C-alpha cells in the first residue's frame, strides 16, 4: 500500500491539479507542486499526500529545559492520551510500563565528560523504518510525506513492530479505551505511536502539538517542517547547525534530528 502512494504521485492528473489551483486562486502555482501545496494548505486535504514533502522535526537539546514536560502534556492532550485511566486493580508501577506514551523526556549523562542533556524522544519517522519492514499485514506503513504510522484497521496486535523499533517509540494499547477524540481514533489491542499530528497535517495546520507547547513555554527547542523544502526553517537550521540522528549506525535516515547530543 505504501508503494501505491508513490505511484500515485507520479500519475497525478494535471488538469485536476490545475482546477485545484484555480480554486485556490493561485493559478501560477500549478507548475510547482510544492508551492501549490502551501497555497491550498488551509483547507482539508483533498489530494493524496505526495513525496514532494517530508515532514520532520529538529530538536535543539541546548534549548530543551530539564524538568519541563510541556511537549509531553501537549501530546497527551492533543491525542487524547490524557484520558487513559489506570484499571482499578492495576499497580501504579506496572501501569506506568503499560500506558501509552507517544513522546517522553529523557535525561542523559555522558559517562566520560559528565555532561547532562535532556531531550524529548518519540517516533523518529525513519525513511527506512524497521517497523514497516516487519509488520506482517502492512498495518505499519510510511505515508508518502514521510510520516510513519499504524493503520489500526489492519493491525492485529502482534507487536512485532515494537520488537523491531530501535527507539522504543511504539505502544501497545493494553486496556479498553473510552472517550476517544474524533480526530484520534484509538482502541484496545492495537499498536500506536507518534504520527506527527497527522490530523493537523491533513487540515493544513502549521505545526505539531509538541512544537506549539514548547514555543508557548518560550523554549523553541523543537522545530517542525518540510525537510525537502530547502527554504523551510527546519532545512535552514539543519544546514547551519550540527545535528545527528539517534542510532545513526543503523542508517535509517530518521526524520527527527537532534543537535547537541
Amino acid at each position, binding site marked *: 500500500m505504501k508503494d501505491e502512494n508513490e505511484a500515485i504521485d507520479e500519475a497525478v492528473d494535471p488538469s485536476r491539479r490545475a482546477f485545484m489551483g484555480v480554486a485556490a486562486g493561485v493559478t501560477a502555482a500549478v507548475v510547482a507542486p510544492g508551492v501549490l501545496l502551501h497555497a491550498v494548505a488551509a483547507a482539508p*486535504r483533498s489530494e493524496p499526500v505526495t513525496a514532494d514533502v517530508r515532514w520532520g522535526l529538529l530538536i535543539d537539546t541546548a534549548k530543551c529545559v530539564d524538568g519541563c514536560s510541556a511537549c509531553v502534556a501537549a501530546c497527551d492532550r492533543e491525542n487524547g492520551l490524557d484520558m487513559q485511566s489506570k484499571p482499578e486493580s492495576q499497580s501504579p508501577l506496572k501501569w506506568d510500563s503499560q500506558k501509552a506514551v507517544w513522546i517522553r523526556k529523557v535525561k542523559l549523562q555522558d559517562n566520560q565528560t559528565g555532561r547532562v542533556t535532556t531531550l524529548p524522544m518519540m517516533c523518529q519517522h525513519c525513511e527506512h523504518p524497521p517497523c514497516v519492514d516487519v509488520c506482517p499485514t502492512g498495518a505499519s506503513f510510511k505515508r508518502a510525506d514521510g510520516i510513519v504510522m499504524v493503520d489500526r484497521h489492519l493491525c492485529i496486535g502482534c507487536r512485532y513492530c515494537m520488537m523491531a523499533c530501535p527507539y522504543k517509540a511504539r505502544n501497545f494499547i493494553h486496556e479498553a479505551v473510552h*472517550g476517544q477524540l474524533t480526530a484520534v481514533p484509538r482502541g484496545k489491542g492495537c499498536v500506536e505511536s507518534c504520527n506527527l499530528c497527522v490530523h493537523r497535517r491533513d487540515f493544513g495546520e502549521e505545526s505539531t502539538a509538541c512544537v506549539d507547547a514548547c514555543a508557548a513555554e518560550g523554549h523553541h527547542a523543537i522545530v517542525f517542517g518540510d525537510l525537502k523544502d530547502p527554504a523551510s526553517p527546519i532545512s535552514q537550521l539543519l544546514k547551519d547547525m550540527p545535528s545527528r540522528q539517534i542510532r545513526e549506525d543503523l542508517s535509517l535516515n530518521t526524520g527527527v534530528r537532534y543537535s547537541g547530543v
Partner: protein
Amino acid sequence: MATAVLRASLVAVGLVWTLAVQTVQAEDVKRYVVEGSRAAGLESCVEPTERIRRQHMEFIKHQRIATVHEGIRTEKYSLSGCVDCHISYDQERVPRPINDPDQFCGACHAFAAIDLNCFDCHAAVPNGARLDATAIAAHRAAGVGPLVQSRRDGEDH
C-alpha cells in the same frame, strides 16, 4: 415435497418480514437526524437511501484507505460524518453513543446481528476537535478542550 413447500413458505415469510421491517425502520430513521445538521437539509444521506443503507460499509471502508494512507479528508463518506448527523442527545444535551443498542448505528446492527467494532477505536459521539480546520483553530484559540466526554464507547468485543 412437503418440505419444499414448507421451505418456500418460510422463505416467503422471511422476505415479507424483511420488507416490513425496512419500511418501519425507514420511519424510525427520521428521528435520528440531528436538527440543523447537514443531513437535516438533505433529501437523503450522501447517497440515495437504498444505496447508503446497503453499501455504507463499503463506502467507509474505501474512504478509510484514502484517509489513513493518503491523507484525504474531503471525501463524502466519513464515519465522523455519520456521528455528526445521526447522534442523539438526552435531556441534558449529552450525546448518546451512536452504537448504543437504541441509537442510530447500534439499533440497526443489533437488529441485523452484526458486530459493530468501528467504535472500539472511533469516537461514538462528536468528541473534541471537529474535523474542520477553522473549528480546530477556533477551539484552540478559545482554549476549549474536548467538547464532551462520552460515557462509554462501544461494547468490549
